[in-house]
């Protein structure tokens, strides 16, 4: 508590500073630390799926290789670039709000959110394709039937496991994209309202951190699921 005793007359207690914090720095650090701890929990949550994926892949590599050919690596790559780019714009949004450039922040945030929608759009195309081909998880998997043959070939029925994991992983990730986009939407709203300044840009920073996490998960998901069968 560096300036422990200056917390009384509300005069030098800025509006954005909650009553139980002494300094803006303390509040900023706490928020950021909190977000990092939260990121840790997200990593472990997604991690569970990655563990399941790697274990089943290790058990039946050839089935997984055959199954992963049914994903469209081009769409996957496109989505990778979209997310990487949105990560850049999110970082730039933080930068511009640090510099107090409100309009620029608005622009970067809007681009980031737009990227989220592009990503979900591409996902939609991919998903509807999979549904159509009977590439559904577990019990609903039908791509081993002759009517779903692809270039005259059908998948082994065991490939159901690959798609179970594919849908769980990308589905949960997609959900995070939506949550992240909504969080950024809220940040955007507060930015438009003029809440932020070079002294106070915590929500932008926190929102962007979360968005980078969404990107991080995809960075692992893309090569493991789309590229290495």
């Amino acid at each position, binding site marked *: *508590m*560096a*300036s422990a005793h200056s917390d009384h007359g509300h005069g030098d207690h800025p509006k954005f500073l909650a009553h139980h914090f002494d*300094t*803006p*720095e*303390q509040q*900023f*650090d706490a928020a*950021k*630390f909190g977000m*990092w*701890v939260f*990121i*840790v929990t997200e*990593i*472990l949550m997604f*991690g*569970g799926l*990655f*563990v399941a994926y790697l*274990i089943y*892949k*290790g*058990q*039946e*590599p*050839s089935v997984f290789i*055959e199954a992963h050919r049914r994903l469209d*690596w081009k769409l996957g790559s496109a989505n990778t*670039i979209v997310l*990487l*780019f949105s*990560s*850049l714009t999110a*970082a*730039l949004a933080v*930068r511009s709000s*640090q*510099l107090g450039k409100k309009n620029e922040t608005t622009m970067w945030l809007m681009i980031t959110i737009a990227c989220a929608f592009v990503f979900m759009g591409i996902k939609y195309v991919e998903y509807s394709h999979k549904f159509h081909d009977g590439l559904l998880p577990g019990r609903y998997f039908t791509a*081993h*039937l*002759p009517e779903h043959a692809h270039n005259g*070939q*059908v998948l*082994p*029925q*065991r490939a159901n496991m690959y798609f179970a994991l594919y849908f769980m992983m990308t589905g949960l990730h997609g959900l995070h994209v939506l949550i992240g986009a909504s969080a950024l939407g809220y940040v955007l709203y507060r930015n438009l309202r003029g809440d932020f300044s070079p002294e*106070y840009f915590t929500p932008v920073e926190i929102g*962007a*951190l979360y968005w*980078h996490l969404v*990107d991080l998960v995809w*960075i*692992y998901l*893309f*090569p*493991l699921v789309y*590229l*290495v069968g």
Partner: protein
Amino acid sequence: MSDHSHAHDDGKVHAHVSPFLFMVAIFGALVVLTVVTVAASRFDFGSANTLIAVLIATAKAALVATFFMHLKYDKGFHALIFVMSFVFLGVFLLITLEDVDTRGRVDNASTVRMHERRGEQAPGGFVLDPRGVQARERQPAGGGAHH
């Protein structure tokens, strides 16, 4: 707060502002690595495939974390807990893999899906859909280990 008060004593937020072009350069590097990983997947490195993919992904993740997420200019503790989360995940993965990989080593009829000697599949397991008979014939030899 005792652990941060030494850094600055004016209590204001002091965050590092990264140069614009630097950020764009990082993005460029990420795109290049994406191209590399796609290109690498065209070649078969055998069992190293997954490892290579994970290594490239880790390089990308490191770039995002260090520069976009400002870990480089942040408290060391944040980097520590970030890395620790991967360590704990590693423990989970490795010991679980250890189990799955070593089943049936001591007794080859134990915890395996197929009875070696009788060639009978364990009941209650994977049921082949009768409609997919043709599919089964097409299956590559390696993948059928558990059928």
